[in-house]
């Protein structure tokens, strides 16, 4: 898959694009189940997704092979980032960083 295609993996998510990106960020440091993801995202981004939104994004990420479900430790299944998910996250963060740099440079210029 081309780098640009990977960067566009989240483009078709519609209103689930932001939750999906934050889920990928949350899983970047290791597997988490839904509750842990919700808490982590609330701490990192100051936004708390409801279960309908969270699992709408999880289903899309699973379908595209960006995350995968692990064996349940009770009723809660942890999820982890796949290699493709890691590539997609890196590509998206890099493009966001490029946009951020340009925005800051333009704001700084008189």
């Amino acid at each position, binding site marked *: 898959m081309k780098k640009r295609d990977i960067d566009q993996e989240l*483009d*078709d998510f519609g209103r689930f694009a932001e939750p999906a990106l934050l889920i990928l960020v949350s899983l970047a440091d290791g597997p988490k*189940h*839904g*509750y842990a993801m*919700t808490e982590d995202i609330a701490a990192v981004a100051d936004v708390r*997704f*409801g*279960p*309908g*939104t*969270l*699992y*709408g994004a*999880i*289903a*899309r990420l*699973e*379908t595209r092979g960006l995350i995968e479900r692990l064996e349940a430790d*009770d*009723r*809660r*299944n942890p999820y982890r980032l796949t290699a493709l998910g890691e590539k997609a996250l890196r590509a998206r963060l890099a493009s966001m960083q490029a946009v951020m740099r340009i925005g800051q440079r333009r704001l700084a210029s008189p």
Partner: protein
Amino acid sequence: MIVRWLLGLYPRGWRDRYGAEVSALVANEPVTIRLILDLFAGAVDARLHPQPVFRRTPSAGQESFTMSTIFAHCTPVDVTRADAWRSAGLMIALSVVVAGVYIWLKRTLGENAFLDALAAAFFPIAALGSSWDTYLKPYSFAAKVSIVSATAFVVLLISLLASFLSEAI
């Protein structure tokens, strides 16, 4: 109680995969309007856009025509944005082609009740052809050709029959 009812609105495949997790997630949360609306919106989304990861593939004899199976069958699978654009382009191109055919036939044959009836069939046929990369995407080329041509034939037949009946009455 209301959370269980809301989870019942989700497709069975979704509930089988995520139901227990979501129940555990909301077990200790207060039931707020925001939670209710979020779960309801999630149920609508899961029905309108069933993801392959939770779509059920019932074995023979297990098929049941509930709303969820009908929605699941009617929703295109793995359709990318490029497919959707191609489909829109095909729809426009086919509409232009069938409009051209209609104008040519009208100029050639003159006023004709059967021709006007055929004109009514042109739009559904264009819409049918535009489903090549969306609803028909999972099928083989031969199956696509068979489905499109057979359905177009039936649509044309119905239009001609309607025209014949209106002339006869």
